Each structure stands twice: as structure tokens, then as C-alpha cells.
């Protein structure tokens, strides 16, 4: 959504959307902290019930082809997805937004060379980049790979924003009255991140959660017994048409996670690189 489009949403409605999204994320965080209570079986515990049992009082989310309790598996998978998304988000924010902000202040043309290189990476779909990084660095790096894959777009956005701020009249006046570059950087970091950090983080969480789950779905990410939601959906492929609950519930939880993150960002997409 462009800045002009964002203005169509009234501030009151935006606050309500954000509050709904944050509340949803808080509930998901509570659910993750109560995984041991919600999950009645350890992760990847086979033979907990008859294979492919539909949802019932005994198995609210049913069982999969190996007799695993889908509710317990989904709870464990959500924990894995969320933990890895957090790590990936930290990498994306540091290597993306923060690095872009600093690079905009590099001397001479070095910042622009970096911006140019990152612009090329930002044009590649994050999923392909993540798969490429996993291929080079190994499967253990899949969370880092998802973060690094999301970083170029954030880098480019932050770089362009920082350049615009640096050329703003107030920055020119500040420099002309001897305010040092470090003070201006601090000023920009504090105000930019104070006002928009929540939106950036929520948007980033949704993006990395999608990338991580898709990488796992393709089989390049999570490894059993620590299955994430993407791997759960992938494992249910042979039985999905006959037993919808095996992939339906993990997919629903993943959709809810992404939806809450997008709502917490007030459905803003930020400036396009």
C-alpha cells in the first residue's frame, strides 16, 4: 500500500486494527508458552491413536497417518515456527533495516554501491534467496537464511528513507549549525524506530514466517522431531485429500499467525523499494 493509500484508513480504524493484531499475537504467545499443557504428547510421538482419526473429543484435531495427535503436533510446530521466525526477524532487522540506515551515511560512494548490490538481491524473491543460502550454508542455517533473504528489501527501504531524511531541510540546518553526524543519526534512529518499529517488526514477522514455512515445506528447513508448521503441511500431502485435518489445522494456525502479524502492522506494507 502506498503512503497515499494508507491515508485512506482513518487513524482510529488503524489503531483498532493494530490492537486486534497485537491481541492475536499475544494470544499466540500465550498458547506457545502453554505448549506443555496444550500438547498431550511429546513432539513426533507416533501411535498415540488410530491413524487418520477425524477430529473428535479424544483427538480434537484428529490424528495423522502415523497416529500422531495433530493438536499436540500443531502446538509443538507453532513453537518451532515462532522461535525460528523470531531469530530470522532479528537477522532481517539487523542486516536489513539497521544496516541500510547506517550504510546511507557511509562516506563517498560506498553506500550507493551497497544500495545497488542490495537492490539486485531485493529483486529476487525471498524464498529463492533463502533456498540458495541454505544450499550454500547448510540446513542448520535455515532460520538465518530466511532472515538474510528478507534483509535486502528492508536494507533498500531503510537506505532510501535515511537518504531522504539526510537531505531534509531540518538536517541541512542542523549540519550548518554544527550538529554532528552522530547526533543526527541518533535522532533519526530514535524517531524512525520509535514511531515505526512495531510496524516494521510485525511486517517482518509475517514475511519471515511465510519464507520459513515454505522452505520447510520444500524440505530444506526444519528436521523431525522439531517439525514446524511448513513441514507438518508437507508431511500431510499424501493424506490431505482424504483426511483434511492433517494439513488443515497447521495451515489454519499458520494463516492466523501471519494474519495477526499483518494486522499488528495495521495492514501497512511500507514503502516499496
Amino acid at each position, binding site marked *: 500500500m502506498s503512503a497515499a493509500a494508507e491515508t485512506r484508513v482513518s487513524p482510529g480504524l488503524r489503531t483498532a486494527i493494530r490492537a486486534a493484531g497485537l491481541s492475536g499475537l499475544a494470544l499466540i504467545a500465550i498458547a506457545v508458552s502453554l505448549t506443555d499443557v496444550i500438547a498431550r504428547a511429546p513432539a513426533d510421538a507416533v501411535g498415540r491413536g488410530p491413524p487418520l482419526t477425524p477430529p473428535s473429543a479424544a483427538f480434537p484435531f484428529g490424528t495423522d497417518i502415523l497416529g500422531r495427535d495433530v493438536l499436540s503436533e500443531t502446538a509443538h510446530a507453532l513453537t518451532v515456527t515462532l522461535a525460528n521466525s523470531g531469530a530470522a526477524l532479528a537477522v532481517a532487522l539487523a542486516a536489513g533495516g539497521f544496516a541500510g540506515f547506517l550504510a546511507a551515511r557511509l562516506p563517498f560512494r560506498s553506500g550507493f554501491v551497497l544500495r545497488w548490490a542490495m537492490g539486485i538481491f531485493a529483486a529476487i524473491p525471498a524464498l529463492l534467496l533463502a533456498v540458495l543460502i541454505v544450499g550454500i550454508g547448510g540446513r542448520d542455517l535455515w532460520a538465518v537464511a530466511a532472515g538474510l533473504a528478507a534483509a535486502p528489501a528492508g536494507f533498500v527501504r531503510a537506505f532510501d528513507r535515511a537518504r531522504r531524511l539526510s537531505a*531534509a531541510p531540518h538536517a541541512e540546518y542542523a549540519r550548518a549549525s554544527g550538529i554532528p553526524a552522530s547526533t543526527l543519526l541518533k535522532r533519526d534512529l530514535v524517531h524512525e524506530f520509535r514511531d515505526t518499529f512495531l510496524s516494521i517488526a510485525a511486517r517482518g514477522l509475517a514475511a519471515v514466517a511465510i519464507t520459513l514455512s515454505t522452505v520447510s515445506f520444500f524440505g530444506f528447513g526444519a528436521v523431525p522431531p522439531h517439525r514446524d508448521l511448513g513441514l507438518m503441511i508437507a508431511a500431510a500431502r499424501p493424506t490431505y485429500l482424504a483426511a483434511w485435518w492433517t494439513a488443515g489445522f497447521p495451515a489454519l494456525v499458520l494463516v492466523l499467525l501471519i494474519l495477526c502479524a499483518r494486522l499488528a502492522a495495521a495492514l501497512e506494507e511500507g514503502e516499496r523499494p
Partner: protein
Amino acid sequence: MSALVTLDAVSVRARGEAALENFSLAIAPGETVVLLGEPDCGKDEILQLLAGVPLKAEIAGTIRIRDGQAERAARFRGRGLRTAYLAGPYAQPFSPHASVAAQAARVIARKLDAPRPSARAEFGAALERLAGAPPLATFDALPGALGPEMLAWGLFAAAFAGTPDLLLADDPLSRLSPTQARAMAALLQAEQKRLGFALVYAAMSTEVVRWLGGRIVVLRHGKVVEEGPLSRLATAQAHAYTRTLFRAAPSLTLDAEKPRSQSRAEPVLQVHALEWRKNLEPRETVTFELRRGRALAFVGEKGSGRHALMRALLGLERVEAGHVVLDAVDIGILSEGMLMRLRRRVAFVTGSDEALDPRMLLWDTVTEPLRAHLRLPRGVIAESREAALKRVGMAGLKGDVPVAALSPFDRRRLQVARAIVGAPLLAVIDEPFHGLDAFAQSVMRDLLREFRESEGPAFLVITSDVAVAQALAEDAFVFAGGRIVERGSLAGIVKAPKAPQTKRLIEAVRPQETLSPPPSGG
């Protein structure tokens, strides 16, 4: 002759407060009515009602067009009246995404019920009729690429091309230099005579009132304070408020005394044979000295070279030849880092509303020069902040208010507070009264004078208004076409200007003078 528009006992109440009380006004065809007052005096509400803009307020009273039925003011949408609107200096009447010409053509097409190409041709014809206006092709650019003067030409031409019955103007001249504003006022009057429209002009400054003439309605807190023709109000005001309003803004003194010889305070700025313009033939150099507590004005139109010299003096631009010694240091031998340190002793107070970071909070804005340069205890910083805010009359405001939420006048005072805290040797005062009402200008003038007297910085005043220069400085350089065309004491320059460009600048603000009287009563 019957009135074109009649407002009868109109009252507006917004957010529980009276914005306009029992206001009546009959506007004759071809008449000029100037609504004069500070912001929030009720003139905005009158313009909006006449423009047929729905207001979120309780509205009483009626509005009648010519001899028609009186309509309830709350439901008045201007049907039967062709109205044009000249937006104010803080409004952005053009969308940034389409060219000015395209937007003007769209508005004209709607007004005249004509196809878009004819409307564009009308816009072009209106521009051609305005002496000195740029050609139509200039306006094929996006609004962001055009300066305020160009946008003003576009707005005026679009308004005239719509052949209005009533032209509503929200002080569009206040952001222009006096010379430009006066020329535009003359054009406005010429077009009014030609097209016969009535003009309602909401003004903050008495200068514009003098130029436009007509009937003046002085408003305060939504009530009429005084009403009458300019010939009476400009000289014999009956109400003390009107008298103060007319005397508040800086005015040119033609017979000012020449100030006594320069003080012997230490020099802040020494300039020797400085050649600050590239590719200027014949080459021009400047040599002068500015001492502590003294003030020098750079007077000239935009683009005349004032800012180029200021940037050269502060080391913001490379100079061709010569030396600039700032605080006893030749800036030509300094590295960029050392120059930055030296510039700590420079403060800015400007008419630009973008001079302060809109995201910063009030207290942080004031104390930033201290926090950035010195390691002082928090208590000392807080003391300086409080003292500075008290001096500019802003001590009562909350410290966590973002700059973006402040009024233009508050932002201007905040710049003074920030300058006071920084204890500068040199203060660059760049069009400090731009866009302010008469009272705000008066307050700013007093604040700046008091700042200079108590802290003793040298002032470098940059302005296109000789009256502002005279209010804040003793000496001046007059700029035109990238050169200094005249220099000396302001008293001498005003009394006996030599250069034609200086004469034009003085003419624009000469007191007690009006342009040829506009047609009255159609």
C-alpha cells in the same frame, strides 16, 4: 445595486467554542472586502461558508445570492454563484501526482463546463494576460518542481480563467516577497477591473490591506471589531485593536537616523576579497567585517545571490578565491570536521517551517545544541532550557509536544529559544517574519532584538523586505542578479537609494501608499 452575496447574522460554533458570532456582510459585485485579523479570528470560517464547504460545526444565520431566496448558511453550497478560491500559504492546493496545468485545466473545465483541451487553452490565455507570468509549458511540471511564486502564478491564472463572480483569497500573497506580492496585488486588481468579480481577501498583514484597498473588516475572536474603507482605517482607527494591528508589523522608516559608528567589539566575521560566485563575468569580490552585536542584512529577491554568499561565509560552499575568517579562524584551511566544530557557534532562525525536525519533541529541540556539543549535567541543561523557553514565552507548553504539532508562530519562537541555548557568535536570521500575522511579527521582532542585545551575537539578516532589514539590522548589502548592487547603512540606503533594484525593493514596502483604488460597488 443589489448585493452579490449577503451573509445575515451568521454564527459558527465549533468544538463548543464560538468561531464566528452574529456576522453580517453584504458584498457588492466588483467590490473588494478584506477580512483582517489574527489566525482563528473567524475569517477562515467566512471563506469556507462562502465557498460552500461543509463545516463540522453548529451554523446559524442565512446566506443570500443576489435577489434570491435566503438559504440557511449550514446548507449553503454556493449554487448560482461562480466562485474561485486562492489557497493560503500553508495549504497545498495541488496534488503532487499530476502537473499543475492538468489540474488547473480540470478545475477550469468543471467551472466553465467545457472540454479539457479548451480549459487548458483558457488557462494558457489567462497566463498570457498576466504580465510577467511564465508560459503555459512551465506548468506542465509537477507542483513539487515549481517554487511558491510559480505556483502562485498558476493559482491566479486558474482562478481568473474560471471567470468567477466571487474570488475568495486565503492570503495567497503572504509567502511572496514584498515586490512580488505587490506586483501580484496589482495584477489581481487589474483582473478584477476587467472581469468585475467581487474579492474577499482574508489577510493577516496590514501591508496587503494597503495594497488592495477596498472595505476592511477587522475581526477578533469571531466578532467584528471595526469596519470601514481603507482611507479611514489606515490613518484614523477608532478601535485600539485596529490601531495596534496597523502598528504591529515592521514598517519602513524613510528618515531613520544613521546609527553611530561601529562598536569596537571583537570581529566575528572577517571577509577579504571573497569571490563567491562561479562563472560570473566580470568577477566580483567582497570585503567586509561583522563585529559582535552588530547586524548586517542581505537584501534582495530570491535567487539574487544572498544565500550563495551566506553559504560561502559558513564554508558550506567552496569559494573561488579570498578568505573568510570566522571567530578568528580562517575557514579555508580547516578540514570538514574542524569546520563543523566551528559552526557550533552559528545559529539559524528562519521563516522555513521545515527548519526544525518535525519528529522531535519541544524540549529535545531546544536542548539539542547543548547536548550535542557539551557534556553538561542534566540539571544545567534543564535550567538553560527553562530560561530560554521562558524568554520566548513558551515555558507553559508541554515538553513532549512534537514540533509537527506546533503552530508556525510557536515553531518560529522555538527556533529563537534553540538559538539562545546555543549561545552563538553569529545568528543567521533568514526571512524570520514570513507567513506570520502582524502581532506575531511584532513579537518575533522584539524577541530577536532582545536576543541580540542580551547575548550579543552578530546578526546576518537575509530578507527580501527592506522594512524587515531595517527592523533588525543597521547595515545592508543589496543583491540583484548574483551581485551586490549597493551597500552601506540601511538608513542611508533607504533615504537615498542609488541602484534601481534597491529603489524597487523600497517601493514595494513604502508606507502609507496604496495602489490605484479598485472599482467599488461594481
